[in-house]
């Protein structure tokens, strides 16, 4: 026991590679979040629209995204679509998988936020002559996004953590993939993953802090 030789210097040598991986991780998280928010707004509109088919699509999307593991969803995108002859790169599979998950959770958050917005506002907007679409886009949606800002921040952190699941589709350019590749070559498992853990921690803290500053700036009355 305790006769393990730590070789931090060797592991730290690969820090530049890992930081490049961290950039890919952030890129995936930001893209998946941006697309996820847009899709989630559409899902919310679908559920409000009263159109049976659209509402059903949105409901199924949300329930599947929320009730199956994210790992399963990424797996499904990569190998499930593969059996239809759609072969996606690991990067794209991971991005689509996380986006699917984000959109589902965000749509549910948006639905919760909508409950906090009084119905009278839509009616007031409509009686001012706005169309239903205008009323939603100009009156309801900005408030909905404001109310769900905190859940969106949480989801962003989740998106960062979820990028590590790319391991299952042989993704090797994100932070987890780079680390696990280095590990396969050097076998310094503990050192390498400890460094990766610190990088992940710093990224998530930076995001939380940035969101807090942004909220203070955006939402002062």
């Amino acid at each position, binding site marked *: 026991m305790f006769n393990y030789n730590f070789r931090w210097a060797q592991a730290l040598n690969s820090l530049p590679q890992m930081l490049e991986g961290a950039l890919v991780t952030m890129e995936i998280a930001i893209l998946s979040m941006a697309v996820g928010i847009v899709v989630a707004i559409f899902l919310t509109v679908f559920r409000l629209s009263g159109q049976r088919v659209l509402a059903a699509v949105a409901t199924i999307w949300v329930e599947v995204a929320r*009730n*199956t*593991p994210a790992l399963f969803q990424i*797996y499904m995108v990569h190998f499930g679509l593969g059996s239809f002859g759609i072969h996606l790169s690991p990067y794209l599979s991971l991005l689509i998988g996380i986006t699917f998950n984000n959109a589902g959770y965000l749509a549910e958050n948006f639905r919760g936020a909508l409950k906090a917005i009084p119905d009278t506002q839509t009616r007031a907007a409509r009686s001012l002559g706005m169309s239903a679409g205008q009323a939603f886009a100009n009156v309801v949606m900005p408030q909905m996004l404001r109310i769900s800002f905190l859940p969106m921040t949480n989801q962003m*952190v989740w998106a960062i953590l979820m990028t590590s699941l790319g391991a299952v589709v042989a993704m090797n350019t994100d932070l987890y993939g780079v680390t696990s590749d280095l590990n396969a070559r050097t076998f310094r498992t*503990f050192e390498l993953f400890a460094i*990766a*853990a610190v990088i992940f*921690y710093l990224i998530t803290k930076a995001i939380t802090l940035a969101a807090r500053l942004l909220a203070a700036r955006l939402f002062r009355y």
Partner: protein
Amino acid sequence: MFDTALTANDLIFLAKGAGMTLIVTGISVLLGTILGILFGVFRYQVGPWWAAPLTFVLDIFRSIPLLIQLVLANAFVTTVLGFRISGFTVACGVLSLYTSAYCAEIVRGGIESVPTTLRRAARSLGMTWGQDMRSIVLPLATRVALPSWIGLALGVMKDSALVFIVQVVELLKSTQILITRLQEPLFLLMICGLFYFVISFPVARLGGYLERRWSND
């Protein structure tokens, strides 16, 4: 389309994987909840300054991907400390701590939701701290905390899919093994997804129902 090489043995193999998912989830949620309640009460009781170290440690569990936590814990226990320990134990240990980090937050929120005046009233009636906790705080905090706790338990069940990394063969991993052999990814993944959905969906609905039911009155 419905031709499949799936045999009864394969189904039993999948069922075993599903059983493993449930066992890992059960142990982790149980231990994690007990720890989470202890941590949550401690954090509330000693105030933010004295609880800062604990808060920091629990926060780490929520800011690092579970996959990395598992790899790191496994490497630490088996190679650094040199213990001979199964992946199953590591998986349960990490998932329990992971659960407790979220649970502590839920418990603290629950306790904070109980009005201070109510607790002062209980104490001035002569109740001890323990009595106050048991008969006043527990029932009221449970109403606030239970829906989130159900969400957490389901989250842990879904996250337990990641324990494949420490060689625990749970549902998704056994599906993966079968896919490698049978080459029918879509069909097998559907079965796997259906299983998760069938467990998660009704419980999630129950959580939503309790939330609505208990927030009204």
